[in-house]
């Protein structure tokens, strides 16, 4: 690579090529943005409750134990499909009740079992959180996860 590839040629290929790939990437990102809002997450309305639920999810840093759509920590179960696993995806009231019962029962205190903390969450917040999880579960994730175990 001595004569043909001089330093300045290598540099120019680097600059030119990088700009090309940035442009392609930006275009695909714009298309993906549209796909997400119009198709992938159109299964359920992005309501105020869902928005609020996302903030509750973030405030308690749930992502640092659980995965959500496979991203996060690996210490606790996947929650992107938890409403499917519980069989309450289309039943908001039951979803709320299951979630509330689960959260109130924590920490289990069982010796040798991983502990989920107790969180101070109001009823309104708990309803929002359960709507958020139902909303996330409706996302078109290209059929991931492979099964309900998550």
């Amino acid at each position: 690579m001595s004569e043909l590839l001089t330093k300045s040629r290598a540099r120019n290929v680097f600059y030119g090529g990088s700009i090309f790939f940035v442009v392609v990437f930006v275009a695909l990102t714009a298309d993906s943005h549209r796909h997400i809002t119009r198709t992938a997450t159109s299964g359920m309305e992005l309501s105020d409750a869902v928005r609020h639920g996302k903030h509750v999810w973030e405030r308690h840093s749930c992502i640092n134990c659980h995965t959500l759509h496979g991203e996060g920590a690996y210490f606790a179960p996947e929650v992107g499909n938890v409403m499917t696993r519980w069989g309450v995806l289309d039943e908001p009231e039951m979803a709320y009740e299951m979630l509330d019962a689960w959260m109130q029962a924590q920490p289990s205190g069982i010796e040798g079992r991983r502990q989920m903390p107790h969180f101070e969450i109001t009823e309104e917040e708990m309803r929002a959180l359960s709507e958020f999880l139902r909303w996330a579960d409706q996302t078109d994730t290209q059929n991931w996860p492979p099964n309900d175990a998550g």
Partner: protein
Amino acid sequence: MKYQSQQVAYAYFVAAMALFGIQVLGGLLLGWIYVSPNTLSEILPFNIVRMIHTNALIVWLLLGFFGAAYYLVPEESEREIFSVRLAYFQLAILVVGTLGAVGSYLVGIHGGREFLEQPLWVKFGILVAAVIFLVNVSLTFLAGRKTAITNILLMGLWLLCLLWVFAFINPDNLSLDKMYWWMVVHLWVEATWELVMAAILGFLMLKLTGVDREVIEKWLYVIVATALFSGILGTGHHFYWIGTPGYWQWIGSVFSTLEVVPFFAMMSFAFVMVWKGRKNHPNKAALLWSLGSSTVAFFGAGVWGFLHTLHGVNFYTHGTQITAAHGHLAFYGAYVALNLAMFTYAMPILRGREPYNQVLNMASFWLMTGGMAFMTFTLTFAGTIQTHMQRIVGDYYMQVQDELGLFYMMRFGSGVAVVLGALLFIYSMLVVRREVVKPGPVAVPGE
């Protein structure tokens, strides 16, 4: 040391090493919670410790990069840093921000996007520090000699600071949130940080091997070209299952596979330069870390990255202990070891202790690298079993985890080795004053 202002790097490196200590102690605690889950569960739950572990990692690596820039930019530009006071001010902001973030995590105040949990004021602090930094090094760079090393280094640093803007963008739509989140996370470690890595590695090779600058700089442009050509579209390997379009499965698989190329090139580069170099630099520890970094980066990022990057494989391994195995070895090889290489090279000079072979430091290399490799193996075995039981058989998550206890115990053991290695490294950098082992007589060829 050729320029007085390079001394700034010393403060950055010390702060970075302190955080490195906190990071691995946090990791050890996490590893212990996996083994004995009731530990501290009411006062210091897993998620809080994990935020400290990952945030400390990122901040200390950045502190190391900033310090490295303050060390090498004057030498390459052949002039003093534009403003030493600004450099210290920048460090003060970062240290206050870091302490503030750790303090607020401990009392339960934090965001909830992985790695970006810092309270808003800390995020702004980081932004301000980044701007100060860019102004300071860019003015130094513009006024002095321009080399490919500083050119690539500054380009990487500018772009990574610009990408920080995405840390402030948090759409209500979870899938959009995830897509833009990767613009910080992936485009940092698999694009812009690679430029920084290549530049620092190039600088170290220049100093340690004495190979001609022209040769080194041409290699550098080829390396960073392959890094960005593959890494930008390679972001697609995170867009398989989060609500993004299906075409990413092919784009992501093809381009992220090509991401192996720059890591292979950096490893080859380091070995070829050492082979070609005539210089017998006394700092053998810096050479060991440089070669070790590029090699482990190839395995951690290249081999372990490829292991789960094809969409047909990732469908099953996504979000399992396989990901944790890869994350650890990749970060360790590419960025931890590279920073430690730079510290190892620069600290004896900054402390006026040349020439210096650093035997204890080399021992810490083997202890830490051995520990991280073992950790990666145990997590890979755990992840393989997890993938099979959970994703193929369909067993419930917690049931599967109960079967993996042995691997988590071994991971904790390897964590102990890593912590001991890290402490030994810090001790050898900051405390040891003289060579521990006397050099033997020089052999005469032919005898």
